[in-house]
């Protein structure tokens, strides 16, 4: 297994990435021992890992199936909200603190459907099932009616937008604009303590590594080839007897699950979840991370997410006015000069020049409306 992973092309990069993750994990363990990086830095690392996982999820369907989702925030949010509900329940059960959003919702006790969310395994199950079902429905319906390319992108964006509007309503019952905040305890640990942050960050990094290995196994195997085939020429594949709808829906669901897990890791580390997590901008940004890192290369997605967000953390504090300009410049640069993101940096420019020349005006052939 491992051998096959290291074997194929780009494998060294992959293993080096894993190595880097291992180093990071080690540092986090050091923090637990009280000698590692500060709680603040640890928390940042944790968030970056969560974002990287999210990017991984998107790259799986965009990079390998050519399906761009501008609504992945939806699944991220499902994970996030369920996790928030778990934390509130858990905090309530251990410390008896009544979440303040219940006060302004005018609730005396938790609604029935919250029952049991205090138990993590159950919460996890709920999150995954929820994300899975939503993905199954949206995916199946869209792919069945051959919605693809730009249309799919727009529709997913509309979906996440609609979800955002819905969650902004107080009456929807999830804290409205305020969302949920004030989580005090996680796995019995006090939130915000260095230990808690380190544990969360460690969990995120480990899950990221696992996700990386799993997705790598998926795409480098037989299914991976079929995914590429679908991306390159779906009609061709169908006329060879393959049921591409099943393939696409399946991968779509997997991607959704990854996104949901990322959400579950992210929310406890920022300490708040609210409908902004569903804003179309965030979902667009995910695509940007992937594009910048390198579409169709799992490692690229990870690097992209980490780089862009690290930059964002840094600049939105250090030089807030400059950040948006830098981001837009980065995107344009990538789109025009490095279609494969950072990975092009390591290749010569010749190939690019050639590509640019080849690009005349394309036909509107839906089949070709690929990435």
């Amino acid at each position, binding site marked *: 297994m491992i051998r096959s992973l290291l074997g194929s092309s780009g494998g060294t990069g992959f293993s080096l990435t894993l190595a880097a993750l291992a180093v990071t994990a080690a540092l986090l363990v050091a923090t637990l021992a009280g000698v590692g990086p500060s709680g603040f830095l640890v928390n940042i690392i944790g968030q970056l890992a969560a974002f990287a996982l999210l990017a991984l999820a998107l790259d799986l369907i965009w990079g390998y199936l050519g399906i761009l989702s501008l609504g992945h925030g939806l699944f991220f949010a499902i994970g996030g909200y369920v996790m928030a509900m778990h934390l509130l329940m858990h905090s309530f059960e251990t410390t008896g603190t009544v979440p303040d959003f219940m006060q302004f919702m005018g609730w005396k006790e938790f609604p029935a459907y919250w029952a049991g969310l205090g138990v993590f395994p159950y919460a996890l199950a709920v999150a995954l099932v929820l994300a899975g079902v939503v993905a199954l429905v949206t995916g199946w319906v869209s792919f069945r009616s051959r919605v693809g390319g730009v249309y799919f992108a727009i529709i997913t964006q509309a979906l996440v937008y609609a979800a955002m509007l819905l969650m902004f309503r107080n009456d929807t019952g999830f804290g409205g604009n305020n969302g949920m905040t004030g989580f005090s305890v996680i796995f019995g640990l006090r939130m915000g303590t260095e230990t808690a942050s380190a544990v969360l960050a460690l969990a995120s990094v480990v899950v990221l590594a696992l996700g990386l290995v799993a997705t790598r196994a998926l795409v480098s195997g037989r*299914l991976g*080839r079929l995914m590429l085939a679908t991306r*390159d020429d779906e*009609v*061709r*594949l169908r*006329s*060879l*007897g*393959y049921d591409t709808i099943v393939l696409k829906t399946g991968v779509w669901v997997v991607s959704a699950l990854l996104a949901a897990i990322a959400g579950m890791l992210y929310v406890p580390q920022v300490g708040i979840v609210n409908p902004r997590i569903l804003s179309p901008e965030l979902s667009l940004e995910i695509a940007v991370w992937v594009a910048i890192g390198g579409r169709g290369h799992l490692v690229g997605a990870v690097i992209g997410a980490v780089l862009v967000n690290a930059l964002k953390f840094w600049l939105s504090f250090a030089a807030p006015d400059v950040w948006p300009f830098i981001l837009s410049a980065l995107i344009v640069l990538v789109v025009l000069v490095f279609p494969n993101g950072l990975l092009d940096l390591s290749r010569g420019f010749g190939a690019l020049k050639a590509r640019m020349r080849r690009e005349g005006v394309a036909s509107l052939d839906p089949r070709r409306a690929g990435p």
Partner: protein
Amino acid sequence: MSALLIDDISVEFGRFRAIDRLSLAIDYGEIRGVIGPNGAGKTTVLDVVSGITRPKAGRVVLDGGLEITRASETLIARSGVRRKFQKPSVFDALTAAENVAVGVEGRLRRTAPAAEVRRRALDLLDAVGLADEADRQAGEFSHGQKQWLEIAMVLGGDPKVLLLDEPVAGLSDEETEKTAALVRSLKRPDRAIVVVEHDMGFVETIADRVTVLHEGRTLFEGSMAGARADARVIEVYLGR
């Protein structure tokens, strides 16, 4: 009983009638050439047979059983229809061997051990003369190589009905020769082959019978020699 029975089908694009009440019967063991000027509806017929386009009227029956006009592309393919597209369609991101392997398996779930699949793929590549290129990326292939690779790919499914859409378009004379030989070698008593082509010479060398289409209707059906002799055919091809 005929392998493919096209019964009185019509296809319209907006106001334009691409196929006009066309009927066609193709038997096992025959190679049928379908010729005709541009816009005659040749490719559209193949689109209907492979389920990409749904006719406005009429039906297409495969092997006396499957109603193609109701089945999904996937089901049609699984019942033994394979098609080589006019524009060579291979998966650029995969190697030649992987391309053919995809054709051989034809199912999402694994049907045969990987090793065996690869062996069959290599055999087919050998058959189309690409054995040495097995592990090259298809994206790097020349036009002709892509044509043959695609043929190998569709042969992977061991089709009952094989549809070849302009297999020699854009090929050099000697490549055309090679392709002709290849197609002839595909002829089998339990297989029907339909070849759509402009190149009358090519069709003549391979086809048992030809159908001449014009403006979505059958203009002539019979031997190639007959076609050459037929007045209407000449008029259509040479114009007044």
